[in-house]
């Protein structure tokens, strides 16, 4: 594999929410991959600085929200002399199409990558109506 990683600057979240967070941290939009498989939808999000305890996932109606809290403390005996990336929390929401089995959602977080497996709900069995011949 020779493809090179592209330099994608972190995108600050363009939230139009009127409700503000009490924490005055910058909020970034994590980059995601979303793959739909036969039985489920897999969402992978890059959230460096977040671990399993500092992530909050919510599904309300069809809105899936991800929030990752990042430790904003900085090393105290050194000073920042050069900065290419900003540090802040992560937030992003998606509207899910189709029915998701909310009780079977699985989330894992490893090395700053969140992986969500959203199983699709069992499709309602099609009900066949037989038409009887009239007498």
């Amino acid at each position, binding site marked *: 594999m020779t493809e*090179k990683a592209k330099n994608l600057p972190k995108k600050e979240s363009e939230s139009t929410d009127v409700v503000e967070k009490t924490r005055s941290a910058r909020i970034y939009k994590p980059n995601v991959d979303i793959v739909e498989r036969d039985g489920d939808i897999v969402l992978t999000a890059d959230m460096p600085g977040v671990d399993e305890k500092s992530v909050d996932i919510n599904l309300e109606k069809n809105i899936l929200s991800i929030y990752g809290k990042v430790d904003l403390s900085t*090393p105290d005996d050194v000073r920042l002399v*050069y900065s290419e990336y900003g540090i802040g929390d992560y937030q992003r929401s998606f509207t899910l199409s189709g029915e998701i089995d909310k009780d079977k959602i699985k989330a894992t977080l490893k090395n700053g990558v969140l992986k969500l497996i959203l199983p699709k709900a069992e499709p309602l069995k099609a009900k066949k109506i037989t038409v009887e011949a009239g007498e």
Partner: protein
Amino acid sequence: MFWMDRFGTLRTGLNPWIDTFYMQDRMDNLLSRFSTAASQGFPSVNVWTNEEKALVTTELPGIEPDAIEISIVGKTLTIRGSRDPEKVEDNVSYHRRERWYGKFTKTLEMPFPVNSAKVDAKFNRGILSIMLPRLEADKPKKISVKVE
């Protein structure tokens, strides 16, 4: 252009630090048009220093720590690594594909020669932190003034 001066206050304008690093980046970008081995400026780094050491942090989510290669030659720090794309199975459809993958090489010039034997690298929650102590011989010497 914002930078912190030695008293920790936010300043704007030209900063010798930033120029050094930017120059490196520009050089790399220039070189990358001709050579595939040059850096594209990925990943982004933050650099923290005091008189004794430098701390370089970079965000590399989803990488296994042993897939990161760090080397130091004099003042130059090089970070290499790669992240493989997820295996694409049959019968799947991508709704979004925003995450990066591929190989990267990042080269940074430190403000002082580094004691490469004492470099310490940690990887936690997808963030790589490299502590680079200044070479002992390069540290500023305090000269006490005697009263005669």
